[in-house]
């Protein structure tokens, strides 16, 4: 997958404080079109907060976040809707609408566009379900009747409903068994071959991180510790990076794919 020079997400000089508690201090990063950025950090380091700020769900204390060149916190309604239609979000626990069936959950963003005819929506939804390997018999079920792994995959199908150019994934493989999470990684790789897809992904899972990310951003001690390819990042000397990437598990994962000996 080629990455062109256009920045899709730009975070500039971002500070976040909750009362006296400082979460982020002076964070700047950009995500280029077509690349996958992995966000890692210990729990409580503000990965999810940063992701929520990129989505416009939270307003940073200072600094700006621009998506497709437009500020997510200062744009007007129409501009923001334009941005949102080009983004897909997979929340950590799926966030499926529990009052709607699986089918309606995926169809909702398509119906909201008001440009697609209902028969076409039906075909598209079934195609998305097929894509995430959910059997068609589950289409009329309610989210409460589904297992955690299925909820995650259906949530991904919903995030992909509008074929977004930019995809935000919050812990995409947590709660999936290894087979499913490998399937998930394959799925994302296939999608990237077919479409120019830019992905921002917060994750704890080293396998997913190593398999998907073009670049990795490490958040710890309120700062952006390192930003670069996985090989570059693991050369940074910091206790968190050493523990996370070069601990027993990290060595096993990174060693098996030839990053470290």
């Amino acid at each position, binding site marked *: 997958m080629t990455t062109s020079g*256009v920045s899709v997400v730009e975070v500039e000089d971002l500070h976040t404080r909750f009362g006296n508690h400082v979460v982020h201090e002076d964070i700047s990063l950009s995500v280029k079109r077509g690349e996958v950025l992995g966000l890692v950090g210990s729990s409580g380091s503000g990965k999810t907060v940063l992701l929520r700020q990129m989505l416009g769900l939270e307003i940073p204390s200072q600094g700006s976040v621009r998506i*497709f*060149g*437009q500020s997510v916190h200062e744009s007007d309604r*129409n*501009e923001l809707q*334009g*941005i949102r*239609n*080009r983004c897909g979000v997979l929340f950590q626990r799926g966030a499926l609408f*529990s*009052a709607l069936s699986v*089918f309606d959950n995926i169809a909702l963003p398509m119906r909201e*566009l008001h*440009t*697609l*005819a209902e*028969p*076409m929506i*039906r*075909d*598209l*939804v*079934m*195609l*998305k379900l*097929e*894509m995430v390997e959910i059997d*068609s*018999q589950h*289409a*009329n079920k*309610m*989210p*409460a009747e589904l297992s955690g792994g299925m909820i995650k995959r259906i949530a991904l199908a919903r995030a*992909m409903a*509008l*074929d977004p*150019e930019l995809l935000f994934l919050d812990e995409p493989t947590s709660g999936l068994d290894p087979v499913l999470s490998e399937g998930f990684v394959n799925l994302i790789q*296939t999608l990237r*071959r*077919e*479409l*120019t897809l830019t992905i921002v992904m917060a994750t704890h899972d080293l396998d997913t991180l190593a398999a998907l990310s073009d670049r990795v951003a490490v958040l710890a001690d309120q700062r952006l510790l390192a930003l670069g390819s996985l090989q570059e990042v693991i050369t940074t000397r910091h206790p968190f990076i050493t523990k996370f990437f070069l601990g027993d598990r990290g060595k096993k994962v990174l060693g098996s794919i030839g990053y470290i000996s």
Partner: protein
Amino acid sequence: MPERDDTQSSMKFSRVTGQGGESCLLLTGNCTLSALGRRMSDLSDELTSYASDPHLHWDLTKIDQMDDAGAVLLWRSWGASRPEHLSVRPEQERLFSRLGKTPPLPSLPKKEPLWLVSRVGGGAILLWEHLTSIVILAGQLLLDMKYLMAHPARTPWREISANLFRTGAQALGITALVGFLIGVVLSYLSSKQLQMFGADIFIINILGMSIIRELGPMLAAILVAGRSGSSMTAQLGVMRVNEELDALTVMGIPHSLRLVLPKVIGLGIAMPLVVMWTSAIALMGGMVVAELQLGLSYQFFLSKLPDAVPLANLWLGLSKGVVCGMIIALIACHFGLRIRSDTESLGIGTTNSVVTAITVVIIIDAIFAVIFSDVGIR
């Protein structure tokens, strides 16, 4: 509209003649949902008319990007099958082969012919279920009380006092406001009527009897049912959604002892106090208006009140408070524990809980009125 880069140009198609002299439709540009936008339905018609020619060669290899929506658009215009002559790139090939495999949406089960009978029957069974499970819950509470008599150290005092504070102390503001206003209105209307007969003095009897015996307890009960009942149901419901109830069960902490009993006892204690408070404030409102409208002084009003209203009425009002409080908490907990782990059931459960609690409170009031029809009335 946001500025788009040049790769976002929408799809175009042109009829060309291929090398072998065949007629060929060449598609270029972007065949994606965001690029097609509002042209979707027009394009669909246009493509369908092209697809009616079976000899047309479709050339999709010059398309920059095609996503699922674009593929479905083409697929539908072809009548859900491949045209005879089609040249595609490998990744497009994958999309179409996936489309070919996609199963149709399974149809929803049809309405059965006897749906009316099954609805009525289902409703009756549901009512029976509610009744039995409330009785079971109440019985469980009695067993818990017996257990606590034997093991007083296990009494959940903290939870009881927390419930007392939430349902009692924090309800004082709203009950005072409503009570005062009702007292004012009642006193104003009654004094207007009494003035016509020159029976001003009876305002004390009317206000005293109606407020202490009926209005105070009822107002307090309905407000508390709406306020505390709904919050108890929602709290238990959210605990179910969050699997907190299951966590308690696996720790061996029974729901009834730790969650239901403190609420029932807490509201059972708080309610008569709230009733007394509401009655007192409502009487105060009435007294203020009686002074303004009829010129009855406060001292006179208060000194005449014990003669006009026998003490039994106060006990009756307070005991209504105890019964209503415990029943409201019981109903709220019953509905809260029935909530399943989805948000819709949470909403329905809370609504049902409040509606049922208010209805039952009024029924209890009617029962009290019949049983104690001879008590406290001269």
